[in-house]
């Protein structure tokens, strides 16, 4: 039986996602996850749910030796789509805490958009985490199927304001080696709280996105960019 070509990519991503279940028999294995809704699914400063609410299910597996894997599925909607569709992420990697207290990690991420498989792509990443700050660098040889090589650097942090209230922040920059069209800075700052396994977050996401094209009196055409901001609410049940 031949499998439709458009299903190959999501199946590979799905394989990464269900890896946790297959490996969960390891004695020290820890399987966790979350299920919830977001008012807008923001990905590196742009909405992958067309500005609408989305549901998300995520799983994560941690082995005792430092290997980890996981995945998520979101009911997103790309700008070119007229209806919702599942967007998959699968990842696997290795993380190790050093004697200094810092941790390093490396891994691979696969993004799959079954309804528009040409958007699917893979990334490789390395990261370093301290007690309150972490940083990661991602490399994609074919970002979103655009044929562009990209580097995405991100720095994340957070601290407790009260026993059940945390502030978190995130800053990132997407750099395209082949075109400046998609290069952009983005950031997020927000508050998170949790109680009896329920988690809620509110954040302000900002990104400097392309807004249009203008031509000056000398006939020089420039791409205009503007800061966009979005308030995002999310509620999830951790398990």
């Amino acid at each position, binding site marked *: 039986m031949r499998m439709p070509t458009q299903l190959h990519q999501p199946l590979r991503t799905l394989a990464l996602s269900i890896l946790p279940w297959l490996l969960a028999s390891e004695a*020290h294995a*820890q*399987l966790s996850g979350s299920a919830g809704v977001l008012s807008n699914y923001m990905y590196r400063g742009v909405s992958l749910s067309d500005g609408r609410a989305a549901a998300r299910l995520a799983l994560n597996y*941690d082995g005792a030796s430092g290997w980890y894997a996981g995945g998520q599925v979101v009911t997103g909607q790309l700008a070119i789509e007229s209806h919702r569709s599942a967007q998959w992420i699968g990842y696997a990697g290795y*993380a190790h805490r050093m004697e200094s207290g810092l941790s390093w*990690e490396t891994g691979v991420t696969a993004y799959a958009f079954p309804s528009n498989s040409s958007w699917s792509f893979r990334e490789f990443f390395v990261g370093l985490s301290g007690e309150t700050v972490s940083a990661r660098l991602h490399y994609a040889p074919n970002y979103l199927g655009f044929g562009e090589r990209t580097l995405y650097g991100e720095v994340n*942090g*957070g601290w407790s304001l009260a026993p059940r209230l945390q502030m978190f922040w995130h800053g990132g920059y997407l750099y395209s080696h082949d075109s400046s069209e998609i290069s952009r800075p983005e950031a997020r700052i927000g508050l998170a709280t949790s109680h009896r*396994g329920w988690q809620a977050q509110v954040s302000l996401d900002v990104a400097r996105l392309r807004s249009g094209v203008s031509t000056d009196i000398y006939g020089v055409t420039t791409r205009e960019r503007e800061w966009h901001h979005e308030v995002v609410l999310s509620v999830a049940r951790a398990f």
Partner: protein
Amino acid sequence: MKRILAFALFLLAGSALAQPGQDLPQAGPFVPPKAEAAVPDTVEILVMLHLPAPHFRADSYGSANYREDAGRAARQRIANAVAQEYKLELLEDWAMPALNVDCYRMRLPAGETAAPVLDALSRDGRVEWAQEIQGFVAQAGSDPLYRVQPAAGPWQLDEVRKAATGRKVTVAVVDSGIESNHPDLAGQVSVEENFVDGQNYVAELHGTAVAGVIAARAGNGVGIEGVAPDARLMALRACWQAGSATRCNSFTLAKAMNFALSNGAQIINLSLSGPQDRLLQQLVEVAQARGIRVVGAVDPARPDGGFPANTPGVFAVASDGAPPRNGMHALLAPGRDVPTTMPGGRWGVVSGTSYAAAHVSGMLALIGELKPELASAKLREGIVLNEGNAPLTGIDLCATIMRITGKCSCACQPSSTSRFARSP
């Protein structure tokens, strides 16, 4: 003048002088903080679950808050299953990233002993390891006042401070609560944290006295002067005062040690002693691996000096005049009739190896200002000891600083019988 001051201090000391049991915390049966009066008929244990290193997750930006991290639910689920299976009561947990474990405190049913459960847990693949919570209690020890600040003269503190005052060095005092607003400690405490379950942070005698020896303000016109008056203190309350005793346990001490490791302590003062404890042992080893100096008080009642003083690499400190111990190279420092700070804005006189250890923590803060990167083993080898001429001090501080740092401007008068310390 010193005698007048000594007498004045003696009067000020008041009841503090007469209080026994303010010194070295020792091993004893664990008594929960809320029920000091009764000997408990329940035993508590610590069950360690694997704590993964932080990493990428699709549903999280990866906050490093381990108490609320995205993977905590999995560990809670395992802990609940373990508790149910072994008929334990799950009380609380505390992540110890330095050891890659999340530490769950569990209580055994009344009347049951820990050994069979610990044995079973040691074979349970879900559990990294488990141990009993061990107790620490204070013991008596107080002599009449006969000297004011015994380190001031022999350690030539006036001269030493021309070279170093402990500036920009943070000393974690893992002890009972420090009175941070004491006139001699105001501004010296950079952070206060309470790790004793079910209690609020309060100022107590032992911690306040240890803090004064290390870093009481100098030149403020009142009270005493700490060995390193410009050092900053982390007041990590892991012990609690219970009548005339000061108690701690494995869990409270581990939480405080974990905090010190994660928040930039350069020296950890452990003026306490007890039995070998796997959790605390590992935290001490991690601290040493990170270049943090760990100072432990020698327990006179234990042949090996007790934990942590018996741990290789720990700066084990005995009170001046203590008899030598076979196989143990403890430093000697002033530990008898030491005037220091007391709760209630008072000063008093204390005795014991706790305060000897505090002197060495102060000394390490001075050296830390001048040579922060020096390996502990080299530092230990560079300590110059006195023999004969200065029996009250053990250490020739001025000569030590000059030898280790080469920056001491003091006009040292080292004892002719000074010798170098041997490595532990």
